[in-house]
């Protein structure tokens, strides 16, 4: 090696040191190099340029700016690209979680995955607890039907809606007090549950069936005219008869009143009229039973 080349190699060593310090300005030599040294200088320049072009990307990544794309075809930063892809996916997953998808799980970020997944798990538990609470606040615990509070809200909602004609049904269990007194409250509860099931089976899935309290039930039947409502009533009657044929301990008797309104009608008024109709029926049934029980004169 001649004197000039060894001088240039010393210069190149300094250039490499400069690049290693993070200064990526172009490689400069004091004199014209031999072809061999020039080739080495070119390679050092290329390495320096490759490092320079990664700088913006890695800097952006370190600041969490994931929209800055990596320099194409740069092989020095493969693990950082992998990290960027992971963080982009994590961002997407977090967006899905924010939109309500709690099935997302992370399995590629070490200890962070564990922490993240336990966060999702606690969100999931919170959601389940809220759902349970909402269910309890809307439902009657004995029959699993809706409760009076939910029924009243729903009555207002349906009144504002467009699913007219709407029929309202009131139903009252006959003889609950007697069952409670003679067979005990557990039997009374059983009777209430069986009556609830009977009514539930006679209506459609999206009709609102509620236990209003004690032995009283109410049903909102949207898109139901008076004819169809009386068919619902028939179905309840049929269920009642079938039950009484089987049952040995007590019989179910349900008094029913219905009222139907067209668009613009008040459902609260309809509920009142249904209630009156129900009492009229109850009275009539009582009369009939009494006259059936009285010996012919």
């Amino acid at each position, binding site marked *: 090696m001649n004197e000039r080349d060894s001088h240039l190699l010393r210069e190149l060593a300094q250039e490499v040191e400069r690049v290693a310090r993070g200064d990526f300005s172009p490689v400069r030599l004091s004199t014209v190099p031999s072809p061999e040294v020039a080739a080495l200088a070119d390679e050092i320049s290329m390495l320096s340029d490759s490092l320079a072009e990664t700088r913006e990307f890695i800097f952006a990544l370190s600041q969490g700016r994931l929209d800055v794309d990596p320099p194409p075809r740069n092989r020095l930063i493969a693990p950082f690209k992998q990290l960027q892809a992971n963080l*982009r996916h994590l961002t997407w997953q977090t967006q899905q979680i924010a939109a309500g998808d709690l099935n997302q799980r992370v399995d590629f970020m070490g200890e962070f995955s564990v922490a993240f997944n336990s966060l999702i798990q606690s969100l999931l538990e919170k959601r389940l607890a809220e759902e349970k609470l909402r269910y309890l606040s809307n439902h009657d615990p004995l029959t699993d039907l809706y409760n009076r509070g939910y029924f009243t809200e729903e009555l207002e909602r349906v009144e504002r809606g467009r699913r007219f004609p709407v029929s309202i049904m009131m139903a009252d269990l006959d003889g609950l007090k007697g069952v409670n007194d003679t067979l005990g409250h557990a039997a009374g509860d059983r009777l209430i549950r069986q009556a609830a099931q009977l009514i539930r089976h006679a209506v459609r899935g999206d009709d609102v069936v509620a236990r209003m309290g004690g032995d009283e039930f109410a049903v909102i039947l949207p898109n139901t005219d008076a004819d169809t409502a009386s068919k619902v009533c028939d179905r309840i009657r049929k269920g009642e008869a079938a039950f009484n044929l089987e049952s040995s301990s007590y019989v179910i008797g349900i008094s029913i009143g219905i009222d139907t309104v067209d668009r613009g009608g008040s459902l609260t008024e309809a509920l009142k009229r249904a209630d009156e109709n129900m009492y009229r029926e109850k009275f009539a049934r009582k009369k009939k039973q009494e006259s059936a029980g009285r010996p012919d004169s």
Partner: protein
Amino acid sequence: MFKEDRDTPRFQWKDLGDIEAGRPNLGSTTSVAVYRLMQYTLRDILIARYDPDTASEILREAGKLAGTEFCRNILKKDLDFNGFFADLQSQLKVFGVGIMRMEKSDLAGLEFVMTVSEDLDCSGLPLFEETVCEYDEGFIAGVLTVYTGKEFLVREIDCWASGERTCRFTARAIDREAA
């Protein structure tokens, strides 16, 4: 049934046969090398017989047919999109195709950016300056088309083979109902 002349593809999932019964000792999986041997020799001959673009197009169309049948026979199509995507992810893992992840999803505009790492087709290949996963492009398009009923344009924008470690695909519905 495999070799009659035809103008449109006829392949169906059941043409894969009863693999369990057919390979009681060797089982239903094989090595990745054998899969790549098949794909890259086929590609080689297709390029020699036709040209690189035609070869890519043929591989893409075959991939689409595969994706279509895969979606029809393996995936749960009645889930909402995130559920469907989670099922796709897990099945691609089960079948050893790759680890798929979503980076962007626009359900209204039907545009997606997804990545596949440890890709069956390309991870670990010697580096060229080109993307090679046309078969995957077709596969993803086939899967999305069956699920959404819309034709999709899928392009690989980064590939292991082009030096990116992870394959990245953009998928966009084109304004055409699926045939």
